């Protein structure tokens, strides 16, 4: 280090209040509108409160009730089942598409890449409108196509069908998420050393082998980011359900976020809703902590 750098560092060190002044405005927003409310959620969860009545301290009663609440438990189970559609299917599809797109100078490669990401960028409400129409039992493109192919027996009321609604919503989720995973993976592939592929080719490896032994190990950090992000998306899905099924038919597609919203803002069980929020947040933080730590450990183990 030269002399000027030293004095520079010293100057910064001496003015003690400066860093705090730089941070203060951002911190105030964060403190007032996120941190304080987060702490309050925790506090609310120990009270019986309608939002306008007096608060009554009830200890852990809300949490005890959660364990017996069929709607909540169904919702939680649905969140977990959604992981298949939010995480596993999109990642598998994205890996296949990455293999197809990344190793060739295909004509129109960028058109494909850009368009596959479109569904992820769109507001979820638009996605909801599009798919409600696709699934429309009477004149939706899906059923009319099936009928015109002579498969009228397969035409179903999709989102209104007890046995199919969950899968129908899940397919929308996969449709939204795969483009995100693909974009992530395509960026990762660019980092992989070309010589690894050349070496694999010299050994006579086919594309399948290259995908498994060069591409996937090469984008492992991207895969773990995709895992964490899509996991979280599955555990906190709200918009998608709100604009397609609102949890129905029955409680086939109910999720914890929707049950939280219903309790907090429609049936005025604020304390109980807060308990749902605490449990949901705890699960999300635990899973992300676990996944992030694991992937970090793996990378260090290399």
């Amino acid at each position, binding site marked *: 280090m030269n002399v000027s750098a030293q004095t520079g560092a010293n*100057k910064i060190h001496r003015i003690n209040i400066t860093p705090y002044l730089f941070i203060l405005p951002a911190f105030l927003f964060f403190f*007032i509108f996120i*941190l304080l409310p987060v702490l309050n959620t925790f506090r*609310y969860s120990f009270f019986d409160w309608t939002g306008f009545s007096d608060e009554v301290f009830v200890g852990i009663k809300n949490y005890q009730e959660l364990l017996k609440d069929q709607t909540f438990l169904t919702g939680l189970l649905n969140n977990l089942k959604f992981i298949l559609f939010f995480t596993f299917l999109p990642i598998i599809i994205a890996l296949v598409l990455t293999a197809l797109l990344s190793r060739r100078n295909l004509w129109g490669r960028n058109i494909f890449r850009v368009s596959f990401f479109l569904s992820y960028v769109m507001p979820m409400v*638009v996605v909801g409108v*599009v798919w409600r129409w696709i699934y429309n039992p009477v004149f939706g493109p899906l059923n*009319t196509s099936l009928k015109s192919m002579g498969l009228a027996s397969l035409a179903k009321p999709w989102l209104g069908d007890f046995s199919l609604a969950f899968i129908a919503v899940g397919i929308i989720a996969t449709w939204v998420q795969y483009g995100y995973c693909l974009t992530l993976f395509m960026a990762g592939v660019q980092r992989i050393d070309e010589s690894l592929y050349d070496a694999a*080719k010299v050994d006579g490896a086919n594309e399948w082998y290259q995908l498994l032994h060069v591409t996937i190990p090469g984008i492992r950090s991207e895969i773990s980011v995709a895992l964490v992000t899509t996991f979280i998306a599955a555990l906190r899905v709200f918009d998608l359900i709100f604009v397609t099924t609102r949890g129905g038919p029955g409680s086939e597609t109910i999720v914890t976020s929707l049950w939280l919203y219903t309790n*907090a803002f429609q049936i005025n069980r604020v304390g109980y809703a807060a308990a749902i929020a605490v449990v949901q947040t705890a699960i999300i933080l635990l899973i992300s902590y676990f996944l992030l730590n694991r992937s970090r450990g793996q990378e260090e183990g290399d």
Partner: protein
Amino acid sequence: MKIATTKSLSPFYSRILNLIGILAVYFILLIFFITTVVPFLTIAVAGFKTSIELVQGAFTLPKLWLFENYINAWQQAHFNWYFRNSVIVAVPVVVISMILSIMSGYAFALMKFNLNKLLFGIFLLGIMVPQEAYIIPLYYLLVDLGLNDTYFAMILPQIAMSVCFGTFWMRGFFAAMPRDLIDASRVDGCNVWQVLWKVLVPNAWVAISTMCVLFFIWTWNDFMIALVNTSSDTLRTLPLGLAFFQGRHTANVPFISAGATIVALPTIIVYLLFQRQFTRGVTSGTLHGQ
């Protein structure tokens, strides 16, 4: 063209195999292209149809391209308001969050102070917690402040969410900047404030523009904050307006389609214009409580 080589076959056969391979690849890509893009296109076309035409076939073009649905959605169904509201919310969120994130990211990256690590850790919490963790007390806080059902009820929480990520993002970028640049400007007599705005920021536009595009799209697409904290139709943003509009006109699909297209269009335009920033933002391993 670079194609995985098939080993020890006659040139003729390997060429045929390659051709089949390429066709298969295009076939798969096309299927995904069609399932992703065609739904949006058919919705846009459906907006030009009459209800009768729509029932007759999803993939046909209308005989007469009716602008009626679009005009009615824009004027009578208030999508002009919704659009204006989305702009009124998104612009201040992006501008203010950008400035605040640059400032706090700078402090965390390049200044030494006792609480640096602790405070930064608390900021990270803001990236990790989902909206559900604070949406309920946030609603009552805004009611108490008298801000419920105003633009501020959307703008202020969105800034709060954005600056958590922005602080993290700008800190990473500033920390990776060459020290020589900063040192040299200090010699020229710049104070900390001038170093930031005259030296660092002009060299950080790549990171800043990416961050702003992310702020914009998060705010523009937000649903829950707007749903919970506003109730007047006159305040609704595009996504919220569309959700309620869909509820009112469930039977009139061409009308809903026109509304959905109006909501989708700005997003598509912004996405196509700022594709690089989108890709960069998404691929930098961003975790965000969206």
